[in-house]
């Protein structure tokens, strides 16, 4: 049995076409097709295989229902969709959220950031590097998996420790979900994020319960997650040299630190052409030439966005639209946020970078563009962001006022519109809501998957993950390990 769909011969100088379908350990249905020449990827296509049509399902409903419906877009990051939705509703309904409401929302979303990053590294990505037990679902796997122990037999103990951490991380991510549930009702799909604020007014007891759990998560991040990412990274130095893609990224700003929403834990911004740019939402458009949507809807600003599915459109190859910022294909996610915010690196990170890479790095950008925008750089960015947010969660726990109102009852206007900008753990997320006759007239979602995993745009420019696949080494076309590693580094 061949390990991948092959059309073409293997070998040096020859061209091989590989399809990986499904790409597993992600959320959703994704297919990757790459062309390999001389042991490297020279072309790539990414195809999203699922269309549910949330935009059309939302039309005509009570605007307040949208935050519940849209959470069901993603069971890993429902809190981010709910956050974007309630922010869009607040904007459209003219609701001013209280300080305590803002902080409570941060505590709900923050807990799920911790959950999502830990889940991503251990339960989605780690099997690309670490050898699990010899039973399902950890086998079968690629024959030449290029795992930690394949690279360095002396790392058997570290491999074993990482497997133990896989199990421990299951508990830690459950604890994170308990933290979400404190103020969010339940997870997945939290009830507590509502238009007008948050439905749960934190009590002293609840804050203490959250804090006690947070301490356990913090300990795990400091003692296990962060060190193991650098330990693994030090064995895969070559993966810091590949996957740079367009070197362009965008972030909307997340975890507002003031009620005016002008200060954030991770600030908004755009980076391309080697320069920083201020975020201007009017420059966000979506192309659909290569997506299964009607050509008449291409190039529209998201606020004019339309969802006219056309599943048999000739030449198209994905259900994902192609968002562009000023025509640029930007990647989103922890790397984008860390590059734009450029916060200090953890002491563990600084030490590891010095020891293993001879790098004197104090802030994230000290990694340099090549290493930061790389396959392994994206894992480092995610781990460092997790570390960076620990002190913010602690500060919110001190700021939140027990018993103080978190909710303002919204009034549904006859008409209005608003956009909610936030960041899912996996990247920039916006929801646009237009109300007519007090019902949803138009609802548009531009999610992280759309930004990262899109197909070519109208000009033929590759999407960010497609571009990042170019140059990825595939020495053995029967075992295209690095292709999936690269895709999963984005947390698609």
């Amino acid at each position, binding site marked *: *049995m*061949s*390990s*991948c*769909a092959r059309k073409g011969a293997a070998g040096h100088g020859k061209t091989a076409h590989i*399809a*990986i*379908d*499904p790409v*597993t*350990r992600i*959320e959703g*249905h994704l*297919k990757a097709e790459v062309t390999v020449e001389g042991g490297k990827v020279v072309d790539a296509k990414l195809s999203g*295989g*699922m*269309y*549910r049509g*949330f935009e059309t*399902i*939302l039309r005509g*409903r009570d605007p307040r*229902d949208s935050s*519940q*419906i849209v959470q*069901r877009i*993603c*069971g*890993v990051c*429902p809190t981010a969709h709910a956050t974007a939705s309630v922010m869009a509703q607040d904007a459209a309904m003219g609701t001013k959220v209280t300080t305590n409401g803002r902080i409570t929302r941060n505590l709900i979303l923050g807990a799920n950031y911790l959950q999502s990053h830990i*889940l991503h590294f251990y*339960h*989605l990505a780690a*099997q690309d590097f670490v050898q699990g037990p010899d*039973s*399902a*679902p950890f086998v*079968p*796997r690629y024959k030449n998996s290029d795992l930690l122990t394949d690279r360095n037999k002396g790392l058997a103990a570290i491999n074993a420790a990482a497997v133990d951490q896989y199990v421990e991380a299951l508990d830690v991510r*459950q604890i994170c*979900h*308990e933290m979400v*549930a*404190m103020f969010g*009702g*339940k*997870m*997945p*799909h939290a*009830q507590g994020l*509502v238009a*007008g604020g948050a*439905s*749960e*007014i934190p009590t002293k007891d609840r804050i203490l319960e959250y804090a006690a759990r947070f301490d356990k998560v913090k300990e795990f991040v400091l003692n296990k997650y962060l060190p193991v990412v650098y330990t693994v990274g030090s064995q895969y130095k070559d993966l810091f040299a590949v996957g740079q893609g367009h070197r362009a990224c965008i972030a909307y700003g997340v975890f507002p630190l003031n009620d005016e929403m002008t200060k954030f834990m991770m600030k908004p911004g755009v980076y391309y052409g080697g320069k920083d740019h201020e975020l201007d939402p009017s420059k966000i458009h979506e192309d659909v030439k290569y997506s299964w949507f009607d050509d008449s809807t291409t190039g529209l600003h998201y606020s004019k966005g339309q969802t006219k*599915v056309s*599943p048999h459109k000739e030449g198209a190859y994905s259900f994902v639209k192609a968002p562009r910022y000023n025509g640029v294909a930007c990647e989103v996610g922890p790397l984008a946020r860390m590059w734009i915010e450029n916060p200090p690196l953890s002491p563990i990170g600084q030490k590891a970078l010095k020891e293993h890479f001879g790098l004197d790095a104090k802030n994230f950008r000290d990694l340099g563009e090549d290493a930061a925008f790389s396959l392994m750089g994206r894992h480092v960015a995610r781990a460092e962001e997790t570390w960076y947010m620990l002190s913010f969660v602690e500060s919110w726990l001190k700021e939140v006022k027990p018993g103080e109102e978190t*909710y303002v*009852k919204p009034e549904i206007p006859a008409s209005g519109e608003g956009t909610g900008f936030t960041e899912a753990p996996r990247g920039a997320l916006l929801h646009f809501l237009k109300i007519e006759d007090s019902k949803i007239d138009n609802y548009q979602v531009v999610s992280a998957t759309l930004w990262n995993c899109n197909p070519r745009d109208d000009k033929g420019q590759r999407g960010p993950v497609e571009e990042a696949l170019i140059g990825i080494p595939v020495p053995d076309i029967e075992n295209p390990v690095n292709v*999936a590693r690269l895709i999963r580094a984005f947390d698609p």
Partner: protein
Amino acid sequence: MSLSRRDFVKMCTGTVAGMGISQMFHPSVCEAISGTLNGSRPPVLWLQGSGCTGCSVSLLNAVNPHIKQVLLDVISLEFHPTVMAWEGEPAMEHMFKIADEYKGGFFLAVEGSIPVAEDGKFCVIGEAHHKEITMVDAMKELAPKAAAVLALGTCAAYGGIPAAEGSETGAMSVKAFFEQEGISTPVVNIPGCPPHPDWIVGTVVVALEAIKTHGLAAGLGEVVKLLDDQGRPTPFFGENIHDNCPYLPDFEADKMCETLSQKDGCRMSVGCKGPNAMADCFKRKWNNGINWCVQNAVCIGCVEPDFPDGQSPFYESL
């Protein structure tokens, strides 16, 4: 093997008393289940259709038994797109191979609904034997060979949000798909958006216990008795939320809350759908007993066959 059945029993105590599990399982799967008790694990193939992976994420929150035990000791999860090491065509071919090898003796877990419009094009789940496989294709191939199907979550059980008004994908539930295709494999619905992990693991466990207690045939005979007319196991979906709600005395005293953040007073005034909903959330609670929707905000009736259309607007009183 290390599976502690006492943990299972503990989890189900009080809800399972006097009940068993029955003809909904093909005899061969019962052998597999019995095998579990003796050391071998029944294969499970887990398909994701039009869904959000929330059911899988919820199952990861199983605490009693721990998800680790479920994965390593109870079942052999031979295919799961979010968990397994394998990927691409060989993973899909492995799945079809297991279905043939264990014909009539494996569980099929389905998460998400099945979109049938446009020949299933709205949900392509992978490639096998150089051919694109849609969710429709996979269900047609695997479901008749399965011993039983667990329709996990409201999408698989009843269609859910992908099948709500405005949908263009022809998304439908497992049961509706079976009726359309003439597939007779038994289906157990475990709705919820997402389902509580206890509801998923508990259903499997209740079956194990019934077979252990009553023997294969008699144990099987108990199974069907557990399902309500919506195909849900009554140990978990047998009680009405409103009738058992801690706010019921407030309702009876006509003491209603005024806003979503107010903690006293019945929450029907702000849209609670508890009176519509059959589930044991009121006593089981979520995320290791931390909270639940009514305590936090309102119930939106996510376990019901008419969710979401019949349960909305979510924030308007009934």
